[in-house]
């Protein structure tokens, strides 16, 4: 069973995000970069399936050279090989362009399953997984919280949460599954795993290597343009309800909820 995992590198959730002077991007100095947590669920699931059925796990990342660190982390967890799609012309690409580049990198690989996170925790678009499945012409199953491969390794059954219920989907293989929180608890990289990761193959591919035209990528080629980034509104100060008795306070609270908050 050969499995591909697509991963993105995103700012650590604890990083204080600052908007850059251009108003359309963020300041990337002093950011700590991590593997997108949803992609990490994908890596873990791929490793578990590999441990059960054998085969290889290939991790594919896209972005600047620093993305190598996240690919190496996946290799340290137990993945077998890595591919980094890196090209200056990719800077500023939108989700669809990213999906096209990834598709070009994986289409000729031998795979039965592709995992990726249900979305990146940075841009929260949730587009790449479905787009890659569409471009590859394979089924896309989103928000997987349980994945089971049939004993004959021909089909996959995926549980997906819907409105408090669970939808159970069966699909032929190959298929693309996007991972949701709850799928598994990703393992920590082990020290022997970290030592081995250094010696595992990690290939770099440029757009030219993938036979792609650089003019279709980057900020200029975006179909979705970012006009402006604004920080979330600052939380307003709380209010202490004044009053002599509980009854008075309750009446005042009801008045404020009605007149100011307009929720009653």
């Amino acid at each position: 069973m050969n499995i591909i995992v697509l991963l993105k590198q995103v700012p650590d959730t604890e990083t204080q995000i600052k908007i850059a002077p251009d108003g359309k991007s963020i300041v990337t100095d002093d950011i700590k970069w991590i593997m997108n947590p949803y992609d990490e669920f994908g890596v873990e699931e791929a490793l578990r399936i590999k441990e059960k059925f054998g085969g290889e796990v290939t991790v594919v990342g896209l972005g600047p050279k620093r993305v190598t660190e996240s690919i190496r982390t996946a290799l340290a967890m137990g993945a077998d090989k890595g591919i980094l799609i890196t090209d200056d012309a990719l800077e500023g690409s939108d989700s669809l362009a990213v999906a096209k580049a990834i598709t070009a990198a994986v289409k000729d690989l031998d795979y039965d399953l592709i995992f990726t996170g249900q979305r990146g925790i940075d841009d929260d678009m949730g587009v790449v997984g479905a787009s890659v499945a569409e471009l590859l012409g394979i089924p896309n199953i989103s928000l997987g919280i349980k994945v089971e491969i049939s004993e004959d390794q021909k089909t996959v059954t995926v549980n997906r949460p819907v409105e408090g219920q669970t939808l159970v989907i069966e699909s032929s293989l190959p298929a693309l599954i996007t991972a949701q929180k709850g799928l598994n608890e990703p393992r920590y990289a082990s020290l022997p795993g970290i030592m081995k990761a250094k010696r595992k193959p990690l290939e770099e591919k440029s757009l030219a290597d993938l036979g792609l035209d650089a003019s279709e990528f980057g900020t200029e080629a975006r179909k979705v343009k970012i006009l402006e980034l604004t920080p979330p509104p600052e939380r307003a100060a709380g209010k202490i309800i004044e009053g002599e008795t509980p009854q008075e306070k309750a009446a005042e609270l009801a008045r404020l909820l009605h007149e100011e908050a307009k929720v009653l």
Partner: protein
Amino acid sequence: MAEKFVSERNLKFLLYEVFDVEGLTRYSYYQDHGREIFDMILDTALRMGKDLLHGTFQEMDRNPPQYVEGRVKVHPLVRTLMRECGEGGWIGANAPYELGGQQLPIMISAASRFIFFAANYSASVYPLLTSGAAHLIESFGTEEMKALYIPKMFSGQWQGTMALTEPQAGSSLSDITTKAVPTQEGYYKIRGQKIFISAGDHDGADNIIHLMLAKIEGAPHGVKGISLFVVPRLRPEPDGTLVPNDVQVAGIYHKLGYRGAPITQLSLGENDDCRGYLVGEPHKGLSYMFQMMNEARIDVGMGAAAIASAAYYAALEYARERPQGRRLRSKDPSLPQVPIIEHPDVKRMLLFQRAVVDGSLALLLQCAKYADLEKVQEGEEKERHGLLLDLLTPVAKTYPSEMGLLSVSQGLQCLGGYGYCDEFPLEQHYRDARIHPIHEGTTGIQGLDLLGRKVVIKGGKAFKLYLEEVRGAVARAEATRGLDAGAGLLEGALQRLEEVTAHLLELAPGDPELFLADATLYLELFGVVTVAWQWLLQALRASEALEADPSGGDRDFYEGKLRTYQYFFSYELPKIEGLCRRLLQSDGLTVNLEDRHFTD
């Protein structure tokens, strides 16, 4: 609870920029390592600290181990952590490949321990003790012993301990009475009592392996009659089954802090069926045990610095958020209150904490570097770094332990009344930190070790090498703009230290009691001078980095380093003057004082 408990930036600054851990990869033992691997290891340690350990920091304190029907029940995290640390390769990380280790530099494992300790000290000691005990078997055990115990200990299935203390023999190990009687079968029958044995029994591991000191029947008196034994709770039979080895848990102690880890009382050989297996040669046990003890002393310093780090970041977070009062320069009472970090006295308290935390961590990583170099070098260089490590071990144990406690206290002070309450973690840090001046040799014992033994070993060679090392930093600082004043202050302090040392050594032949009466103060003096040296090393690197005109967070970091260096040299270093004056007096006040003078 505060999220941040260590500074990753500072750890990397010390490892890569000040102490050049990458330089170790020049030696063949470490040649497979490199920056990328170190970064991944630190990153994993930070994640484990955050996700696995930090979340149960308070819970383990509130639900301490229970003694139930002769066994000790601990928090379920202990089993998980032992497994993660075993499967992850953390317990055997420093060991050679052929024993299943990763030949990891001691500097990197020390940095990882700092992270684990800061996240949750109590939880971290279980794998740590196992590491130390396994290393002792690795160094002095037979091949059979290694094969039998090390894999199970490295995998986290079996817990290791160090079993030294007895009811009547704590600091004075020469007075232990646990007996070992030789048998025809080659093993010894052990009988006696041990107390204060950390992780001496618990249900988070499948077996407990005690590295225990005992006296073989008829052995000479004193420390030369002590031997080292492996005493398992369940002894492995040749067919692989485990049978009870007559090690009874008589009880556990209820402690002020560090409550997530039990300290136990053990009773050995009540049914005359406790077998011990001799490690190395008879009567040499204490010198073997000192390998583990010296490592453990550095780890105690690390634990103390780590707890102080967690307390500092909790205090810092609070100081930035808590509005209280107005700047003294502001005359307008209608202005909103300012966060307390704007008050100079609060800044002073925070600076003190940072000076202690980063200064201690630097000293501990310096020691780890000496340990690495001693391990991989040969000849004179090996001896040099071994001697420096020997000399600095009592300092690296004590400065963080004693000053860390004051540092946590200042952290607690930043929170005022809230600091004293258990909604905030400071009160727990304060309780947890209090063990460090006590265990693995009290501060008093460390003072005796430094002045009575280390300063004079090899005709004072270690001390001479130390002066050379510090003067190397002084010389570099003299040639660095902005640091020449600090260089002068440290040189002055070194001269005072030399003067005091020479004065005390003159007393030694006449009256050992007078010579060592204030050894603890001497250790305190030595600690301040040594940490000043570590601050000068950090300042040298920060100045160099600022020459390159860094931006953003990097500039703030290096400037913060220089400010803290200035704080140390302006507020802490001058304190040695009082110590020097006292140490030069040698009037024997405490030597001649009698019991009756204390009564009323």
